[in-house]
């Protein structure tokens, strides 16, 4: 069975400081990895994904994520956080092998609070 862990329920950071949201996963084979953001009373918005190739993936709004196969991690990062980045962030994983299913499994979510 596949699983995703986001060890921090909440991350607090001052505006202008680097932001990191952690994610580790457990899945058979090499998965597809995703990050989503959810603003209050909104649906989820796609930020970025890792499929193959360069371990550092760049996405929307200045976010990036680094795939680390040995540590089975896919941490989300932003060099300089903005107050408007305050939201709920979800890491998600989907098996690459079709036989393992098409289901996208989400982590528990991490609330990011960026203070002015």
């Amino acid at each position, binding site marked *: 069975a596949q699983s995703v862990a986001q060890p921090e329920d909440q991350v607090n950071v001052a505006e202008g400081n680097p932001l990191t949201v952690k994610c580790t996963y457990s899945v058979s084979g090499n998965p*597809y990895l*995703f990050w*989503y953001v959810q603003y209050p*009373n*909104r*649906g*989820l*918005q*796609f930020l970025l*994904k890792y*499929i193959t190739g360069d371990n550092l993936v760049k996405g929307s709004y200045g976010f990036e994520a680094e795939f680390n196969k040995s540590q089975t991690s896919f941490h989300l990062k932003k060099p300089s956080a903005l107050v408007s980045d305050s939201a*709920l962030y*979800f890491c*998600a994983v989907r098996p690459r092998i079709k036989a393992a299913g*098409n*289901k*996208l499994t*989400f*982590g*528990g*979510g991490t*609330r990011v609070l960026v203070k002015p």
Partner: protein
Amino acid sequence: SAVISQKPSRDICQRGTSLTIQCQVDSQVTMMFWYRQQPGQSLTLIATANQGSEATYESGFVIDKFPISRPNLTFSTLTVSNMSPEDSSIYLCSARTQGAGELFFGEGSRLTVL
């Protein structure tokens, strides 16, 4: 990318009634899914909506309680039947193309059952 429209965006319902949520995608997609989310919590997959056939339900969800239709590639409905206060939640429609495509989400339908 795909734009997903859901309606209603919110509703307040009485116990024992049923509510149907509609989901429209602006382009043809291969896969459509329905999720449930408590505010501020993670998402739980209810089922995969299959075009022209019965939906595939996840453990803990059954067709009698959550009947789903998908008559074509761009439209699906989820009905929450015989509602109880425990069904109060946000219901999210999502869709993607085949392969490595990411999921796109609707804005959600916030359901409150009294």
